[in-house]
């Protein structure tokens, strides 16, 4: 039986991980309480949770120089996330060539490659999975980030055929739905809302997703409520702050405070980088005109 499936042992820890409940992944689950075969996946999930929480050094330290490919992949990811080093990318490439059939390698090295701008390589690696929804979800996201909604949709649909109603399939479809718009906004909203409102899976991540979908549907007040809830749960959540900036500027509010908060939390956030770039672009575009002022 699929250990991640609805009846499997790993379902709760995996769900918590997918929902961004990283603290829960670390605190509520003890690797030793799982059966032998599932111990390693639990360990990997916990390492990934640590990475998500920014504890890269702890991960690198505890992995050490293990020869287990799974752990090497973890190390590559942690190292890359820590400083984006080329060495980590090279490691990941090497691993993907030698250990390409290992799921952990596929997932983690896929992330590294995708982030390093080698999307095609990442996709090729991920396509070697055998029924892993994590791999599907990653592929979908990479497709979407390349604006290939069509490919993402195809990927999600194929997963639907073998995994029915699994959480990740729902999520992946919702991500695609957010790009397609129209009625799909509502469908995506239902998925996000369901996660955000259920007590077991309510997390800042799912609340943010709900808020974003509401924002896209023009339900600004509802979006604000959900975002504020997320910010209560995690006041320093960069995604929540970023979307708060968006929401506030739609509402015509002053966003400088939230933006500086975001700056202090995650100075390398995509939104800030993008904003700075656009500011420059504006100045550059401005140069073409030479207004004449009356003294």
């Amino acid at each position, binding site marked *: 039986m699929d250990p991640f499936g*609805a009846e499997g042992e790993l379902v*709760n820890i995996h769900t918590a991980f997918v929902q*961004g409940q990283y603290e829960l992944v670390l605190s509520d689950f003890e690797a030793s309480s799982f059966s032998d075969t599932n111990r390693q996946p639990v360990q990997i999930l916990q390492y990934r949770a640590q*990475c*998500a929480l920014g504890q890269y050094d702890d991960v690198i330290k505890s992995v050490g120089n293990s020869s287990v490919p799974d752990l090497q992949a973890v190390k590559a*990811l942690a190292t890359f996330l820590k400083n984006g080093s080329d060495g980590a990318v090279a490691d990941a490439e090497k691993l993907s060539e030698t250990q390409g059939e290992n799921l952990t390698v596929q997932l983690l090295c896929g*992330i590294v490659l995708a*982030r390093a701008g080698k*999307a*095609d390589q990442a996709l090729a690696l991920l396509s070697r999975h055998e029924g892993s929804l994590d791999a599907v*979800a990653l592929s979908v*996201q990479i497709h*979407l*980030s390349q*604006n290939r909604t*069509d490919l993402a949709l195809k990927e999600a649909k194929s997963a639907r055929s073998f995994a029915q*109603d699994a959480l990740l399939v729902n*999520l992946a479809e919702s*991500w695609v739905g957010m*790009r397609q*718009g*129209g*009625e799909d*906004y509502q469908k995506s909203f239902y*998925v996000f*809302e*369901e996660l955000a*409102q*259920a*007590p*077991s*899976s309510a997390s800042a991540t799912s609340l*943010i*997703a709900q808020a*974003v979908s509401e*924002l*896209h549907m*023009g339900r600004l007040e509802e979006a604000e409520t959900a975002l504020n809830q997320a910010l209560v749960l995690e006041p320093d959540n960069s995604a929540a702050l*970023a*979307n708060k900036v*968006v929401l506030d*500027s*739609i*509402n*015509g509010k002053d*966003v400088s405070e939230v933006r500086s908060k975001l700056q202090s939390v995650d100075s390398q956030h*995509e*939104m800030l980088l993008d*904003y700075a770039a*656009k500011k420059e*672009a*504006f100045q550059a*575009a*401005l140069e*073409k*005109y*030479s*207004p*004449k002022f*009356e003294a």
Partner: protein
Amino acid sequence: MAASSSSSSNSNSMLTKFESKSSRAKGIAFHPKRPWILVSLHSSTIQLWDYRMGTLIDRFEEHDGPVRGIDFHKTQPLFVSGGDDYKIKVWSYQTRRCLFTLNGHLDYVRTVFFHHELPWILSSSDDQTVRIWNWQNRQLICTMTGHNHYAMCAQFHPKEDLIVSASLDQSVRVWDISGLRKKHSAPTSSMSFEDQMSRQAQQQADMFGNTDAVVKFVLEGHDRGVNWVAFHPTLPLIVSAGDDRLVKLWRMSETRAWEVDTCRGHFQNASAALFHPHQDLILSVGEDKTIRVWDLNKRTSVQSFKRENDRFWVIAAHPEINLFAAGHDNGVMVFKLERERPASAVHQNQLFFVTKEKHVRSYDFTKNIESPSMLSLKKLGSAWTPPRTLSYNPAERSILLTSPADNGVYELISLPKDASGAVEPSNTMRGTGNSAVFVARNRFAVFNQSTQQIDIKDLSNSTTKTIKPPHGTTDMVFGGTGCLLLISPTTIYLYDIQQKKQLAELAVAGVKYVVWSSDGLYAALLSKHNVTIVDKSLKQISTLHETIRIKSACWDDAGVLLYSTLNHVKYTLMNGDNGIVRTLEHTVYLVRVKGRTVYCLDRAAKPKILTIDPTEYRFKLALVKRHYDEMLNIIKNSSLVGQSIISYLQKKGYPEIALQFVQDPQTRFELALECGNLEVAVDMAKQLDRPVLWQRLSSEGLAHGNHQVVEMTYQKLRNFDKLSFLYLATGDEEKLHRMAKIAEHRGDIVSRFQNSLYLGDVQSRIEMFKEIDQYPLAYLTAKAHGLDDQCEEILEACGLTADTVSLPSFGQPVEPPKAVAPTFKSNWPKRATGASSFEKALMADGDDTAAAETNGFVEEDLLAEDIVAEAGGDLEEADDEDAAAGWDMGDDAVPEVEEDFVNVEAAEAGAGSSEADLWTRNSPLAADHAAGGSFDSAMNLLNRQIGAVNFQPLEPRFLEIYQSTRTYLPANSGLPPLVNYVRRTLSETDSRRILPLIPRDLESIQAGEITAGKNAMKVNKLEDGVPAFQKALHLLMVNAFSSAAQAQEAQAAIHSAAQYVLAMSIELERRKLVGKETDLSSFSDEDKKRALELSAYFTVPGMDSQHQTLALFSAMNFANKNKQLGSALGFANALIERGTNAKFKETARKLKSVAERSPTDPLDVEFDTFGEFDICAASFTPIYAGEASFACPFCGVKYHTKYKGTVCKVCQVSAVGAPSSGLRLVV
């Protein structure tokens, strides 16, 4: 999911509503209106019960031996009984006594019934006769003989002049009594008593032996005695029950009557039978201890109910309500056959419910419209059982119903798109289960009580998950997203479906329904007599007990729970405070509360609207939440205040608020004391002026250290001793002296002594002693203080010498301590408590008017903001726009730059083009290009459309738009969030029509910046007004509107905003020149002239009339102050003509009358009141009609020709006189 409710009682048995314990019950009668039932007992007692409350109202004991017949009169407060003492008694239940007795029967009376309209009583007796009595004149009017054994039962036909009777002679007889009616409905007023007597004599002695009642049919078929017989309420049918254990159905026509069929099932004597008043059912009871229900049309058994030990003797039906009563060996039971609660569910503004005909309908709360039937559920469960619950799934627009038939079934049905009538549903999913409820968009849960299992199913009805509920679970309802509430008789559990884990449990007994608040944060658990409010994690918040049965509940939007009992709508707050909202005549099931409107379903499953007065609970809620403004509002706008609310406030610890309501001085005094408001207490005590109050006030004042109040109360109480002591304690020596004086005046020796002691006044003490002939004491006092002269005097007066007086030795005289601090000057300092926020709210309310007047222009009323720009100007503007657009149709095409941009992106292998790129392709609007991030092309567009050249001021706007259109969706851990693009075309999926959301629509700009700017004008903060209007201009410049009409409105707003900026800039220029000085005599002539001109130009731009009034007023005064009476006169005339402020006009008229005497300007200014001209926005000089000028292509402000090509001063973006195609604001 929306709030839904469901019940847990799901057995097939009857719903027993009331049971009494007594000796054998032989007769039963329902009161037609009140919840009363009369029970006549074998023990000779008649009981009157309230079956709703379960209380015995009265007992009537005058019969001797068993009482078998009993009936209520339909309209009057009467009832009739017949007993084994051969007597028929008529009673008044109001006066609670027997009015009279009808004697005549010669054996036991079996049944008695009132006629539905005539003053008749029908009785049957073991003397083999059936008799009719007139209870008004207390006469026997007809005796029907024919039965040759005991007559067991006789009943009137509900409409026609027929009687049916049953007898142990095995026959049922139908009698025609139309002759009797004719005789008795003949005019009686003219008839004398003798006439009546003679008529009766006649009747008795009919020569042919005929009576007024003739046997019409004799029905034979029972082969034992017949115990009971009854007519159908509307059809020509009769039902009878006999000792042959059979229930027989008979039909009759005008001419004949025949047996239709027999209902077999009772295995002992059948005691009684009747037709269901509203449904095609027969009910019968028997000595086999069963109640049986039969289908009238098929004569098959539908239901049966068995009692353990008690034989049934009689059954009765309520004439209107769906209620029955059956009498047995040990009392009476009142029951109903089926649930009357219509299955329903609320989603947003819609109610879905099942009607009595088992049709599914919806009801729209906003439009108050009931839809036609959408579905027929005839096939669900058995024909006679209505569905129990309904759960609605908005995502799939489907419903899930459960029915208790066949030990519980559920059915999943999709609702048709339009309600087109009661169609049979197609492709439904069904299965067995006791409860079923949607738990997610594509999942529902089914609970099976017998297997104690919950199946989670998908929409194709296949089980995806199985859950074992806690032992003893009897019902399952929605428990919040992803959760279920599982109900057992003593406990309720919150269960997480995904984790398969019990999250919480709470011991609440007998929960029947669960009602969720619309925000899903709270739930009310309803049991028969309790309401328990819990939060979504099943933590108990409050609970309350009701003696009357609780029927339903729903949540107000403010978080107040309204619930209905059998006869009231009540409310409860979260803290458990509750009260009555209104009374109910009929039981209803609440489904929704909106403001003053309560929506409910009645027992006939019809939507009903009740109006309520929510003031009381709103007020209490406001109090709990400390929303004092709202409380204040409620107090002002409603007649809420009553004793109850005052005592409520007091009880809840808000005496200071209660104080605000009370007029009665006594109560005010009490409340003031309670909240320590001495001021009010003093006022009230003064009004009332009663010693007891002063007494209490004094001790309260003392406790507060408020010795001034204490002093006053002591004065009022004439409490001199205490007063003196108070002065001593506060060190008020002066007043102490006065007290001494007063004491002397009063001749109160003790008081004088006291005061002199306090004052340390030895002299006066000695004087006093002397006065009262206490020489020894006087001497001692003098001696002790070393006043030897005095001693001598005293001795002398007494005729003694010092030697004769022997004294003990005493120490030094003690001086009373002197006051160090002048405490008396003021009260003890207290920490300022300040006014309560409520009082503040009250006070602030009073200050409103004063605050509004403190603005620069001291105008009275500038609130009329309805007139926007002049209509003429608008049209012109629009025409210009159209004309310009006509010139450059082709130019709006997307600039080429943008093609390159796309190509660059596309160069990346495998990647597609982002939605942002689509936007720039799909739209010719600058705003959409800015949203797409293509600032280059956006600027290019603006440059062509409105000659924009200076883009710096637009930077925030560009970035705001850009930023508003990208959201960040966290997806996979480790990867950056997914960027999504926010659209304004929400339902569009065609990539060629997708357009971005542009923040700040026209309405928000008008409500925000433009209103702020106009307010700045009103309060004379022009330096704030200019940037506000400029910001509005920039917001409008880069924007997208949904319709041409809106775009036109936006153009008008642009024009108006520009005029304001111009006007304000002119006025600011004047202030720069001369500051706030109104008298210009100290300035040079040149400055003076310029200032006066600017002041005049301020009146020119097209502002709203109330703001133009301000400008005119200011210009008029300025001119007047500087002796420019000619100009002043012009402004005054304009003001009188166009002003919007009465006070200003008044001033203008006065000024006009003065100025008209010498309308000249000593200083010649360049301003012609009558001339048509514009003001150049750069030089602030006039541009006369016909003079060459250039305009800003965006805001339309005019400039002298020399400013051509410079950036517009007003909008700060466009170049004056630049070629332009006109701003596009609509795609």
